[in-house]
């Protein structure tokens, strides 16, 4: 027995293809053409984290800003955002991409301060998807979050709306604890995307108000993934920093 079908009129569809928009599966990440000044750490050799391999509660977060009055199309916004992704991040956070930019399969390096007063953390992302109106990242082992981040732009009622959608959980108990800490953690993470969107809006001459929607879609913690803490990028970056004097003493080949 087939129950009544739901949906829209498929007969009016113009076929489109997602071939070429997705990265190929990778067992582990590999960086290439590391830009001068970037720290390439906690990325090469790391597997990707999926939502099912993270630790903390699963959050669905959506941040959006409406570019009211700006004569710019969603495609133009995404083109600029891809080209200048790191420029729109708040101060203190740096993202490095190879010259090929944001494209499926490319690996980006992140050198960021997770919170004030702590050493800089090195991690990265893989561009898993990119088309003319959106692009998505997934993070490797050690990154604060497991899951996907999607950046998109669309036309809504005659104005271009720019969005950041996050479906992630903290990757290990350390990061889950950080996310629960008042005034830092989740608040800083959310403020980062709000600032990023405001910077994108400002670039297009709009003083935009960022709308937020934050929902916990799975309140359970995946204790079987607590072992992820061994890969924690902040802890490993700190050890790397304090190990710098010893590395200088090591004989050069």
């Amino acid at each position, binding site marked *: 027995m087939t129950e009544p079908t739901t949906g829209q009129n498929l007969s009016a569809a113009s*076929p489109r293809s997602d071939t070429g928009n997705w990265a190929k599966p990778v067992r582990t990440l590999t960086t290439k053409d590391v830009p001068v000044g970037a720290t390439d750490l906690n990325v090469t050799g790391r597997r990707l984290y999926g939502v099912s391999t993270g630790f903390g509660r699963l959050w669905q977060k959506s941040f959006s800003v409406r570019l009211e009055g700006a004569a710019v199309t969603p495609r133009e916004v995404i083109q600029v955002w891809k080209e200048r992704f790191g420029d729109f991040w708040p101060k203190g956070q740096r993202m490095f991409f190879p010259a090929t930019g944001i494209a499926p399969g490319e690996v980006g390096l992140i050198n960021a301060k997770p919170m004030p007063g702590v050493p800089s953390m090195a991690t990265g992302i893989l561009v898993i998807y990119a088309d003319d109106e959106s692009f998505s990242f997934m993070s490797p082992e050690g990154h604060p979050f497991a899951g996907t981040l999607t950046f998109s732009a669309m036309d809504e009622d005659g104005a271009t709306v720019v969005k950041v959608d996050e479906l992630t959980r903290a990757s290990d108990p350390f990061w889950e604890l950080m996310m629960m800490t008042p005034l830092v953690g989740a608040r800083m993470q959310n403020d980062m995307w709000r600032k990023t969107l405001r910077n994108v809006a400002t670039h297009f001459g709009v003083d935009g108000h960022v709308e937020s929607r934050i929902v916990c879609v799975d309140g359970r913690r995946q204790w079987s993934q607590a072992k992820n803490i061994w890969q924690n990028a902040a802890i490993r970056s700190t050890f790397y920093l304090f190990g710098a004097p010893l590395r200088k003493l090591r004989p050069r080949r």
Partner: protein
Amino acid sequence: MAQQMTETSVRPVDNAASVIDILGEITAKSEPQLMEAYARASGTETRVVILNFARLDYMNSGGIGLLVTMLVRANRQKQRLCAYGLNEHYRQIFELTRLDEAIAIYDDEPAAVAGAKAS
């Protein structure tokens, strides 16, 4: 941008399993269709929901997010999600996003039904 096109139908296999046939596209805009189909497929005795992707034409990263949300709902209700009909391209996407570790993938419907009952 092309118009969003998603179509679903629901077929019960027996009291414990149902199939959701997915036609067209899965993007973030498919949420009403997919979640309504999941609600219809998910009875009080349902233990397995099988997704048929044989007629999937297009999926973006928003679509993957939707499948993750459906997976969380299924887990909450102590149900399993299975899939069949994925071509090589979509199998690779499941592998890339590690969804294949949470959603069992089968070649065809008989294998999915047998696998679901065996687990």
